[in-house]
């Protein structure tokens, strides 16, 4: 499905990724952990083709399609999704209209307001979003939890093949974390969406059935394993990885 092969990437003159490789299959949930500022968010932006991140070596493939040369919008339309750590507000852009445009574009449909209402119903219930909130403007004056739930709502509407969730559990209370986790599980099962979830916390993982956990250090995947990796990390910190992996220097 999604192959990241020996990725080297720079922001301005600084090399952030130094040979990162990862393989994620359909419907799988992968967790990416690592210290702050190590380049986890950069990886998400690189996958989406953000202009400020430059791929200097390696390739990103979705199934057999090489993504290099594709614009951000083209990647999104191919089925890639990035849930932002800090979603951007667009004042004056009414959510109800925005979501309907989004849905119609991705599914090549022309649903009316009332038809789209039906599409939304079950998703709003799952995410516990009040329909009233759709009359607001996109991410404008939202609380952290509201923003994250709207990121998940957009994901559910787009049914992407692959999604990066950048700290979807930060600034969110436990109930909202549970809701987000349920939504991830649901999408991985029903739409076979593959996930790469960037997180700092074990808690979200308690609600999820993750296939693999990866630890990123020094621009590479330093260690991959099962959930036991998280337990060791929480106890001993990232130095534990360093101590157990001689190739990596902190």
């Amino acid at each position: 499905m999604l192959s990241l092969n020996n990725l080297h990437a720079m922001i301005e003159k600084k090399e952030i990724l130094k040979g990162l490789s990862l393989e994620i299959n359909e419907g799988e949930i992968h967790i990416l952990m690592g210290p702050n500022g190590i380049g986890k968010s950069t990886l998400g932006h690189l996958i989406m083709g953000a202009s400020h991140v430059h791929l200097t070596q390696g390739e990103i493939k979705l199934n057999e399609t090489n993504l290099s040369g594709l614009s951000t919008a083209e990647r999104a339309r191919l089925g890639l999704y990035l849930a932002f750590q800090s979603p951007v507000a667009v004042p004056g852009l009414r959510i109800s209209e925005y979501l309907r445009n989004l849905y119609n574009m991705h599914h090549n449909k022309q649903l009316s307001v009332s038809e789209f209402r039906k599409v939304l119903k079950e998703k709003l219930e799952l995410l516990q979003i009040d329909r009233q909130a759709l009359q607001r403007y996109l991410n404008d004056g939202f609380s952290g939890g509201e923003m994250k739930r709207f990121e998940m709502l957009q994901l559910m509407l787009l049914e992407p093949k692959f999604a990066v969730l950048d700290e979807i559990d930060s600034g969110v209370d436990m109930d909202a974390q549970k809701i987000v986790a349920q939504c991830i599980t649901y999408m991985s099962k029903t739409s076979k969406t593959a996930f790469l979830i960037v997180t700092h916390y074990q808690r979200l993982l308690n609600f999820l059935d993750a296939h693999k956990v990866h630890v990123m250090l020094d621009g590479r995947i330093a260690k991959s394993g099962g959930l036991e990796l998280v337990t060791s990390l929480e106890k001993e910190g990232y130095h534990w990885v360093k101590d157990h992996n001689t190739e990596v220097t902190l």
Partner: protein
Amino acid sequence: MTHQQNTAQPQPSSIDDINDYKYGFHVEENYVYKSEKSKMGLTKKIVEDISAFKNEPSWMLEKRLEALDIFYEKPMPNWGDSKNLNEIDFTNIHYFVRPTERVGTSWDEIPTEIKDTFERLGIPEAERKFLAGVSAQFESEVVYHSMHKQLEEKGVLFFDMDTGLRLYPDIIKKYFGSVIPSADNKFSALNTAVWSGGSFIYVPKNVQVEIPLQAYFRINTENMGQFERTLIIADEGSSVHYIEGCTAPVYRSDSLHSAVVELIAMKGAKIRYTTIQNWSKNIFNLVTKRAYAYEDALVEWVDGNIGSKLTMKYPAVYLMGERARGEILSVAFAGNGMHQDAGAKIVHAAPNTSSVVTSKSISKDGGVTTYRGLVKIPKGMTGCKSKVQCDALLMDDKSQSITLPTMEIEEQIGNEIGHEASVSKVSDEQIYYLKCRGFSERQATLMVVNGFIEAFVKELPMEYAVELNRLIEMEFEGVG
């Protein structure tokens, strides 16, 4: 204005097409009367001819001639874009042109791109011909007559100003120039001297006019003249919404448009005046608009300005009675080679009055927008509230926004005054976020821009809102 939805998708074209003014075409001239251009500029003879041609009462001719003297004496405003202003060539203007019923240009002669513009805006056939100057009349007699009948039953007067003067000289004599005297400024003097067309509306006591009145619905109209003069009087407890202009491009071979609009909202009356104008790039658009709002009255100016070489327009509300309210909501869009110098003026001339000014401006491709505003609270006017919000959106580094708010607050007791201004650029983060959801650069830009003016658009009647959005879309063709 138009009541059709255009389902055709705009075809992409290059940004140059948008900037090169595509509405600039000439209509063959064939007029019953046309004032001579003269080296002298505007002469007494021209003014006398206009008045004689219209068979006006002598007091109107006197008013015109008095205004002419003021026009001669008054210097050009030395503020604002005076460099641009001084380019106006008063000798190169036809001060009065009366179109005949057949203008004599065939639809076939209208350039394809103009027709395309009408097509894209979804303007019905008959209106297109009117706008393109092919037909002097807009064939909506049925609509017009049925509406006219309803209004008549309620005692509402709605005429072009020339007809109004013929039929109701007493009302006009009483109010004409009472809000904006000839001597107010050089261009109000000019308008008074040579005015022609415009609208006259009188709404009797306690009559609510449910549907918006549109100059458009008048047949054989002169409402789109260069020097139109509009007077609206809403008597006690009445209400009316008047809509001027349309989103369709308006072309004039003469480069000066200078209108005067006077509104009078009596005790407890409501007037909303909505304007959307889209002028070609050769036009100087210098308009004086002012309203008197008496006790408990409400006056709202909703004013959208697109195009023109230079627009100077500052709709004003004088709050003359207690609890009177004034609201001015405006959008200005300046593209390449355009300067929108627009704003608002509020005078709290009575205690416990309130005002809200919301100004939105968009500058693109080197365009300049200026907000020029005044809020005045004279000594003794206590308990007044005023809120001014100016937001400017810059599309690129070449474009410019200037904010010049003036507050003349002579009374502090019980007054609440707020002013906020913001200048923002369309942020890369917003565009990137929307691209990550699959929207193109152009779609993303439009979403941000339309979001920016949403507060304005939602105040427009549906069909105007649709058209304005479509117009903005056209302005952003070629982006991304």
